[in-house]
């Protein structure tokens, strides 16, 4: 037997070490469709609890939207369950092409290529378009999937301080001797909810002849006045060269992702990106439902407008209650606690109050920057948000942090 006692013991020790560092990810089971109000079994084996979900990427509330579910059924009936193939062999249906065309139009790009996930899109895009003589200059807080993709690519890479345009300019100068320069950023950063200053970044890229790639996974469908994304918000749609995004968040919440942008770059991804070449196509029900999502949000801005209102209403509520909230204007609202144990304890108490939120701490966020990340949804009602604010107020009072700023919280609990 190859799995020896020695091997088992070593792996058990690794798991114990994760637990001892407080980094163990516990199992939580959702026993209902994904929505603003869900049924949860947590801890494992505990009776089900009815809670309000404030930690999903269900920004537009489309995960269980009746029209999206209906379109998924139709996709299943008309085009079947799975493709049993990667895209380039026999895994591309007419609806894959339609979704790509619809995404290009929606995002204002020349062409689009679907991937099994945005993680796959980010893993594949860099190696497909860059080589040793090129350089990638990335914001230091980009998503882990971009980091992985950059590491898989033979191009050189460098980083700049988070959203620091002076530092980016310095790096663009430093690397001006390279063949191709690609600046990489998230549109909305997932942990802080802050918006990359794409207008300034695009101007710098113009100045230095660099390309720019934006991961808009936490923006597509709702940032910008018609929900096109961060590039619409900053009025620089025609200046962005590549966008990667997901269908697993605002755009329906199932799975799948894409790279959208300059025609030649997309064509090279089609020829060379390994996750495109070696992983299965998006399943037909998801493709059909994603087309419906684009239909819905292209016809009306009602959902993104409601989300915007919900985010502002929640933000004002917790700020007025005296919680320390990172400034911003996206549906990601980080309630800052700085101390990891405090973030964990408060999220547990919030759950007891019927509000499902999670504490984040190092290494997911920088050391000393622990927080509860709250994510709003268009599916939340005013009453849901009032209940969440009331729970935060009650729990915040219990821990004596209402009215305290960063220094006050750190003085009381440490970092």
């Amino acid at each position, binding site marked *: 037997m190859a799995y020896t006692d020695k091997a088992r013991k070593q792996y058990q020790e690794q798991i114990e070490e994760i637990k001892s560092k407080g980094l163990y990810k516990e199992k939580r089971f959702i026993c209902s469709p994904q929505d603003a109000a869900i049924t949860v079994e947590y801890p494992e084996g505990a009776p089900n609890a009815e809670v309000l979900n404030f930690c999903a990427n269900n920004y537009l509330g489309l995960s269980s939207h009746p029209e999206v579910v209906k379109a998924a059924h139709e996709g299943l009936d008309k085009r079947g369950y799975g493709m049993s193939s990667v895209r380039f062999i026999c895994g591309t249906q007419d609806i894959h092409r339609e979704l790509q065309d619809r995404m290009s139009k929606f995002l204002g790009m020349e062409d689009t290529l679907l991937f099994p996930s945005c993680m796959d899109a980010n893993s594949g895009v860099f190696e497909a378009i860059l080589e040793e003589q090129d350089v990638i200059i990335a914001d230091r807080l980009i998503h882990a999937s971009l980091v992985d993709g950059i590491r898989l690519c033979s191009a050189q890479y460098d*980083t700049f301080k988070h959203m620091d345009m002076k530092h980016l300019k310095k790096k663009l100068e430093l690397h001006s001797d390279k063949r191709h320069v690609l600046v990489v950023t998230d549109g909305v950063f997932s942990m802080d909810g802050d918006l990359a200053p794409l207008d300034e970044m695009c101007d710098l890229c113009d100045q230095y002849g660099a390309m720019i790639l934006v991961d808009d996974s936490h923006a597509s469908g709702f940032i910008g006045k018609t929900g096109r994304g961060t590039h619409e918000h900053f009025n620089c749609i025609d200046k962005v060269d590549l966008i990667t995004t997901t269908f697993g968040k605002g755009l329906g919440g199932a799975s799948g992702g894409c790279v959208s942008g300059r025609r030649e770059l997309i064509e090279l991804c089609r020829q060379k990106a390994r996750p495109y070449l070696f992983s299965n196509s998006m399943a037909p029900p998801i493709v059909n439902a994603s087309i419906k999502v684009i239909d819905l949000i292209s016809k009306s801005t009602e959902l993104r407008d409601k989300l915007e209102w919900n985010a502002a209403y929640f933000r004002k509520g917790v700020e007025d209650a005296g919680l320390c909230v990172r400034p911003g204007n996206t549906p990601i609202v980080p309630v800052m606690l700085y101390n990891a144990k405090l973030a964990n304890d408060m999220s547990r108490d919030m759950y007891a109050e019927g509000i499902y939120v999670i504490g984040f701490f190092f*290494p997911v966020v920088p050391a*000393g920057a622990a927080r509860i990340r709250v994510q709003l949804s268009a599916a939340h009602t005013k009453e849901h948000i009032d209940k969440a604010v009331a729970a935060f107020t009650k729990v915040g009072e219990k821990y004596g942090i209402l009215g305290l700023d960063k220094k006050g919280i750190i003085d009381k609990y440490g970092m």
Partner: protein
Amino acid sequence: MRTIRKGTAMADEMKDMVLEYVIDEYVDEDDDEEIGYDTPLISSGIVDSFSMVSLKVFLEKKYKISLPDNEATPEAFDTVNSICELVKKFQG
């Protein structure tokens, strides 16, 4: 306000140079962190394993050396002292 906690008699030019680069490259203007030769950089989160590449590029260019990936580890890059030891090793 950023502050540099330098050594005293033992201070040398390389350590000061690396320390200055680390502060310019990784510490924000408004951070009140005090960084010295023995301050943990990676294990404390001041420098993460992704952005460590900027420091590696700086060292290779400044000291005209090539640091192989198996030597340029997060452990070797954890303090200014350990970084300088690594550089000296490859300076021969």
